[in-house]
C-alpha cells in the first residue's frame, strides 16, 4: 500500500507565473520521458524482479518518482496562477487552455496525451534494468533542455534538484544491473531469464 506525506520532496515556491514555462515543463508530468511514465515503469517492472535488492530498488525509486510527479504538478500549477486572457494568448498557452483551462493534465509539451506506450515492462531483468538506465538519461536530457529555456531561479532550483535525482537513480540502477549479472552465468548472461525460468541462479 501507499501512504501520503503532506509535503514535497523539495520545495516549490514560484513568485512569477509564466504560462510559456508551464507549457514546456508539463512534458515532465505526462510526456515521453516524464515522471508519470517513470513511476509506472518501475512500479510495474518490480513484480517480476527476481532478487530482493531489485524488488527494493524498483519499489523505492518508483515511489520517489511519484513524489517528483507531484513536484512537477506543483510547478505547473504555480506557473499558471492568476493569468489574464491576454497572457494566455500571447504565450501560446491557449492550445492547452482550451482543453484543460489551468487544470494539470498528463500530456507532452507538444500536447500529445500520456500513453503507456512510453514505457515497457518486459519481464526480463537485464532488459528492464537497461530500459531503466536509458529512461534516467532521457529524463536528465529533458531537464537539461528545460534548464536551457528557463531563466527564473524559482523554477530552476526544483528542476535542478530533479535533474540530479536522475543521475543518482542511474547510478543505483547500474549497481542493480551489476548485482543481477553477478548472479548469472558469466559465460552467457542470456542463457536463461531469472525473471521467468525456475531454479536458474548459481
Amino acid at each position, binding site marked *: 500500500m501507499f*501512504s501520503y506525506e503532506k509535503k*514535497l*520532496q523539495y520545495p516549490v515556491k514560484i513568485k512569477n507565473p509564466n504560462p510559456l514555462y508551464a507549457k514546456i515543463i508539463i512534458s515532465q508530468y505526462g510526456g515521453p520521458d516524464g515522471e508519470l511514465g517513470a513511476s509506472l515503469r518501475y512500479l510495474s517492472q518490480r513484480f517480476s524482479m527476481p532478487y530482493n*535488492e531489485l524488488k527494493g530498488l524498483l519499489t523505492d525509486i518508483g515511489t520517489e518518482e511519484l513524489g517528483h510527479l*507531484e513536484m512537477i*504538478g506543483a510547478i505547473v*500549477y*504555480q506557473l499558471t496562477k*492568476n493569468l489574464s486572457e491576454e497572457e494566455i494568448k500571447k504565450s501560446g498557452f491557449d492550445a492547452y487552455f482550451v482543453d484543460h483551462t489551468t487544470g494539470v493534465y498528463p500530456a507532452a509539451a507538444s500536447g500529445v496525451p500520456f500513453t503507456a506506450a512510453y514505457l515497457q515492462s518486459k519481464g526480463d531483468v537485464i532488459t528492464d534494468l537497461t530500459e531503466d538506465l536509458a529512461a534516467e538519461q532521457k529524463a536528465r536530457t529533458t531537464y537539461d533542455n528545460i534548464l536551457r529555456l528557463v531563466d527564473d531561479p524559482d523554477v530552476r532550483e526544483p528542476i535542478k534538484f530533479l535533474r540530479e535525482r536522475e543521475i*543518482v537513480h542511474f547510478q543505483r540502477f547500474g549497481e542493480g544491473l551489476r548485482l543481477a549479472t553477478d548472479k548469472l552465468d558469466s559465460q552467457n548472461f542470456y542463457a536463461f531469464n531469472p525473471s521467468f525460468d525456475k531454479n536458474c541462479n548459481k
Partner: protein
Amino acid sequence: MNMNNREIALKNLSAQEFTLWEMHLYLDTHPDDLRFVERYNKNKMKYSVMKNEFEEKYYYLTAESAEGVEWLKGPWPWENEECGC
C-alpha cells in the same frame, strides 16, 4: 525565494528526510554495509525528533496522524501563499 518560519522549518525537515532517503537507496544496493546502517539509524533518530517538533508547531504530515479538520488544514504542498494560490 523568500520563506516564512514554517517554510524554513519544512525545508530543514525535508533536507533531513532527503539525507535519510538517499542513504536508504544506497543500502538497497549495498545491504551489507553495516557501518552505513549505523549512520542511517543515527540520522533517523534526528529526523523523528524534527518531525515531531514540526507537527506540534504547525500541522500533521501524514494521513495516519490526523483526520478531519486537523488533516484538512492547509497549506497543501503545491500551494504558495505568496501568489495567493
